[in-house]
Each structure stands twice: as C-alpha cells, then as structure tokens.
C-alpha cells in the first residue's frame, strides 16, 4: 500500500472533524457553564468548515480512483451523500441542543465533543469499503452514542437508556462480528470488492449464508427493525430529547449506509438468501412499528415506534436495489426522513422548555393558540411523516413503493400502503391536540438556535416535496457504484 499526498486531502473532512472534537473538548477548560452556548456556536462553525471541506473533496478528480489506503476508504458519491446527511443531522442536533443542554446541570463541552466524535464514526462508516474499517467506525459511533444516551446521569431514565443501549448494542455488535469472522474465515477476504469477486454466485455454501445471516441480524439491530427493535422505545424515551432526535436520524442513517453498501457491493449474488428474510422483516417492521405507535401516550415513545416503522419503509428500497428506484429511493427517503423526523423532534424540544415537559400527547393541547407558526410547522412534519403530498415524505415513499413493485414485492408494497394509512391515526392525534383542544396558555420561550433548526427542516421538507426534480437528479448520481 502506498499513501499518496491526495489521500490525505480525501481524508480531510474526517481529519478536521476529529480535530474539531478535540478542540471542543479542550475549550471546555476555558468556557464556564454560564457561557455554554459558545460551544454550540463553535460546533456549528466547525461543522460548517467540515461542510466546506466535503464540497472541496467532492470536486477532487482523485475520487474516481477507487478505494484508498489499502482498500479501506472510498470517497464515492454514495459516501459523500451520507456524509452530507450526517453533517446535516449533526448541525441540527447542535442547534437543538443549545438551550436544552444549557439549562441542564451538566457540562456542555463534552456533550458537543461526543456528538462530533459520533459523527466521525459515521463519516468513516459512510466511506468504509472493508469489513474491518466499517466495523471499527461503527463501534466508534456506537460508543459515543452510549455515553450521550446517559449524559443526563442525574436522571434515572437516562442512565437506564444508556445501560440498555450499551448492553443490546454490544450484543448486536458481537452477532455482527461473528458473522464477519465467518465470512472472513471462509474466504480470507475483508474488502467489499474482493468479496464480490470471490462470491460470484457459484460458491454458495451454507456456512457463507450463515455468516451473511448473522451480519444481517447485527445490522437490523442497528437500524432497529422488528424483531430487533426492543431497545428503541426505552432508549428514545430515556435519552435527553436532542440526543433522541440525533439517534433517530444520525446512527440510523449511517447504519443504512453500511447496510446498503455491504449488501449492494459485497453480497448482491446472495439476494435469493437474504431477500425473503429482509422482506419479512420489512413487513413485520412496518406493521408492528405503526400498530405499537397507535397505543403510545408518551410522545417520545410514539416517535420511537414511528421511526421503527420508517426503517421498515426504507428496507423496501434495499430489497429493490437492482431496480431503478431501489437505492435511489433509499437515498431520497433517508434525506426526507432526516428532515421531517428531526423537525418533529425539534418541536418536542421546543415545548420542553424549563419547567414544562412534552411527555404526553396532551402536552400538545392548544399549541395553535399559544404559538401558531409552531403548530403549522409541526403539522407540516406530521403530514410529511404520514407521506401526504406535497411533502418530502410523499416523494420518498413513492420511490420506495415503486421500487418494491418493480422488484416483484407487490404484497410488500400493499402492506406498506396500509401501514402508512394506520400511521395517519397517531400522527393526527397530535395534530388534533394542537388545533382542536384547549391547553394551558403559558408562553413558550423561543430559542433562536432551535428556531433555525426547525426552519432548516421545514424548508427542506417543503422544497423536496414541491420541487423535487433538482434534488432527485443530484441523488441519482449518488447511487453506489460497484467499484
């Protein structure tokens, strides 16, 4: 392996982001609790510079040469899309955290540093082209997430969330790792492209199928698909709400990146083996996620189940990866999902001002009277989550359902449509509470950072919904190539 000078340039966003995490950590020595919002602005600044570096990297012609650093790291359009998406999730998380973490009696510097380090892991996941580099990056992301879940350690629920997340995360990593070791032990290869060359379809044995099955189980744990979803409601409920918002988009999106890449690049010939399993899991995820969400009264739990259901929709695209809309649909949907789901969580955080909890659906009572713009924007996110035009969620679902039809999973597309119809009920419970119920009339303090996050999400959700052409064109170029 020879390291070229341009390799370091290709790595520059990751290198800068790692440095940013350390700078945030070091600056917490100088910044006291009173001036804590400085960390938020510093983080946004650093993430902005990372974004500029990503744009710079996207213009480098050296990207086309395939994986660098001994086949560990690839900067294709697919990786860049996920990096931009993760960056967006991080910026939104930081904006949503400024007031929330500032009001809590916990230090801010380490919080933002952990968000950034988790993002470093996601960046490396998006670019991983070798099972080892993917796994190490996954663990980096997960470890930072476990700590973030338990960051409000004075609250017993936060500690419980961290413990559950850690134990189940470690267990699923062990399953994943066993699968990886089987695949490596049978073929002696770790690179995804090498694996694709090794398994062209004729050497199918039970043992390799077992290895792939265990990788599949480990990854389905990470994206919280039924029946591997049991940790999700408790972790989402117990974690600090901005962290929950981050979990619902960041780690999920990154897990989808490696899920899609591993199965699209390394094991496409085994679709006969994993196709039916993924189809059944997708069906169970959509049905159970939406039905269980109906029964929830706690808003965070409801959105936990809702995010489980959304993970099920996106699986349709993975199933139809050989059709035109398959991978494309996954990318469109993940972008739409990030914007609309984070937007909904941002409004829960907005309501969760000092001395006021947005725990149950009734906490949304009469929001329209207290703050009309907030209620209207929340309605937009709910419509988008339910998949009603003209919103981003509709475009995403349209692509995914088409992909499932094209791939011959018509029954799955029908289940998906029915499941979406069920989701209308619980999304509109919140809408009805906001517009048709009287609630307390206390004024909600406005945080500018949080407002900015909501505006980003709302504009994105609307623009993709109303004028999707330009975004769709860009995303079509991000469908992974089989380097």
């Amino acid at each position, binding site marked *: 392996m020879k390291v070229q000078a341009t390799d370091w340039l290709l790595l520059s966003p990751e290198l800068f982001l790692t440095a940013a995490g350390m700078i945030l950590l070091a600056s917490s020595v100088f910044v006291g609790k009173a001036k804590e919002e400085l960390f938020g602005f510093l983080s946004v600044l650093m993430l902005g510079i990372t974004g500029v570096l990503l744009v710079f990297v996207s213009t480098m012609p050296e990207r086309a040469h395939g994986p660098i650093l001994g086949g560990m790291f690839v900067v294709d359009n697919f990786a860049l899309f996920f990096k931009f998406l993760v960056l967006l999730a991080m910026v939104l998380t930081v904006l949503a955290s400024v007031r929330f973490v500032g009001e809590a009696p916990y230090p801010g510097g380490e919080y933002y540093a952990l968000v950034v380090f988790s993002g470093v892991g996601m960046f490396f996941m998006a670019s991983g082209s070798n099972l080892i580099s993917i796994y190490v*990056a996954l663990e980096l992301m997960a*470890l930072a997430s476990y*700590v973030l879940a338990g960051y409000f350690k004075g609250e017993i629920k936060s500690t419980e969330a961290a413990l559950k997340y850690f134990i189940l995360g470690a267990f699923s990593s062990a399953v994943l790792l066993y699968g990886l070791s089987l695949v490596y032990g049978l073929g002696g290869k770790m690179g995804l492209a090498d694996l694709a060359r090794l398994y062209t379809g004729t050497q199918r044995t039970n043992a390799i199928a077992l290895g792939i099955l265990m990788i599949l189980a480990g990854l389905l744990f990470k994206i919280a698909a039924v029946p591997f979803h049991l940790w999700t409601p408790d972790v989402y409920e117990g974690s600090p709400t901005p962290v929950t918002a981050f979990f619902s988009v960041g780690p999920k999106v990154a897990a989808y990146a490696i899920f899609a890449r591993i199965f699209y690049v390394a094991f496409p010939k085994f679709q006969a083996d994993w196709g039916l399993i993924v189809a059944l899991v997708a069906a169970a995820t959509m049905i159970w996620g939406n039905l269980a969400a109906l029964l929830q009264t706690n808003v965070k739990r409801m959105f936990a189940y809702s995010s489980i259901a959304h993970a099920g929709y996106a699986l349709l695209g993975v199933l139809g990866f050989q059709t035109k809309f398959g991978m494309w649909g996954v990318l469109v949907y993940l972008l739409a999902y990030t914007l609309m789901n984070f937007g909904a969580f941002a409004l829960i955080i907005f309501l969760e001002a000092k001395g006021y909890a947005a725990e149950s659906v009734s906490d949304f009572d009469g929001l329209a009277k207290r703050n009309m713009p907030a209620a209207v924007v929340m309605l937009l996110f709910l419509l988008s989550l339910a998949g009603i035009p003209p919103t981003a969620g509709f475009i995403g679902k349209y692509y995914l359902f088409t992909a499932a039809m094209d791939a011959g999973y018509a029954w799955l597309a029908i289940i998906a449509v029915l499941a979406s119809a069920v989701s209308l009920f619980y999304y509109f419970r919140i809408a009805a509470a906001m517009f048709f119920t009287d609630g307390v009339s206390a004024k909600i303090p406005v945080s500018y950072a949080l407002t900015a996050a909501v505006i980003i999400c709302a504009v994105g959700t609307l623009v993709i919904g109303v004028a999707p052409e330009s975004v769709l064109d860009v995303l079509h170029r991000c469908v992974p190539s089989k380097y």
Partner: protein
Amino acid sequence: MGAAEAAGSALLTGVAGWLFVGFALLILGTAIAVVWSKNPVHSALFLLASFLLVACVFILEEAEFVGAVQILVYAGGIMVLFLFVIMLVHQRTAAGTPAFQHQWDIALLLLPVFLIPFLYILGTEKFTDIARNPDAFRAVAGRVIGNTEAVSWLMFRDYLLPFEVASVFLLVAMIGAVVLGKRSFEKVD
C-alpha cells in the same frame, strides 16, 4: 463445538489438533463458569483462566505476538481493573441474587434451535484446503522476518486507517468514562 473441531481438523493435525480441541473445550468451560459462579471474585478468576487459555490457542497457532498481547493486556491490565471494581463495589451485593434471570427457561428452549443448525452447518461445511504455509504469520512481501514484525507491518501499513480510528475510539471511551464516572456536575464553575 463443531466450528472449533472443523477448524482444528483443517488446520492442525496430530498432537496440536488434540491440544486445540482441549483448549477450546476448556475455554468454553471457563467461560460458562464466569456466568455461572455467584461470587464475583470466582467469576473474575475464571475469566482470567479463559483469557490465558485463549492466549494458549494463539501461541499454538504460531501467532506469538497476539498471544503475548492477550496475556499482557487482557490477563494483565483488564483483569486488574476488574479486580479493582470488585473491591470497590461491595462484593456481597451480587451473592444473594440468582445467577439467571427468569427468562432462563425460554433461553434453554431456544438454545438447541440455534445451536443445532450452527453445529450442522459448520460441521458439514467443506472448508477449502488451504496449503499449509508455516511462514504465513511471519512473512512480509515474501521475506520471512518474525511474527511481531509481520503484525506491525500489517497494522501500520495495510490496516493503518482502522488502527487510527481505533485510537479515536479509545479517546472517546476515556471521555465517556470520565463524563459518566465523575461524581457531581453541580460543582462545575
């Protein structure tokens, strides 16, 4: 275990093969004992035995460097930490609780459901015959040097990126431990 035996028969023959099977069974036994024993000190000692036996397997497979690291880091460093924790946390708190939670009967039912296909698949798998290369763990680019050198070439050259990401991982682990372990945040400032 089928996997262990199959791998043993493919890679190791004669005395070494039997030694491998013996070590593998002992590792399994000590690992089960870690979970089974109610006294945390006993658990820790069984864990130590398990670590040392894994090191034996590594050395048997002529991967001396990993074997030495296994003893130094796991049997040495990590075990000391475990013992510290056991001493700090009141030891008897775990003694009264049952070793297994109430789900043990379901687990017992599910065990054969997973174990039998595993054993069957890995036991009947025809592993490709890899030509026995005694220098496999010692050669770099055709030149035979030593196991430690070969590992370092791999780690700092071919697997440089995951190695560096792992260093960030350890930093995050340290930050996380301090953040979660620090006694009170109210006294910040």
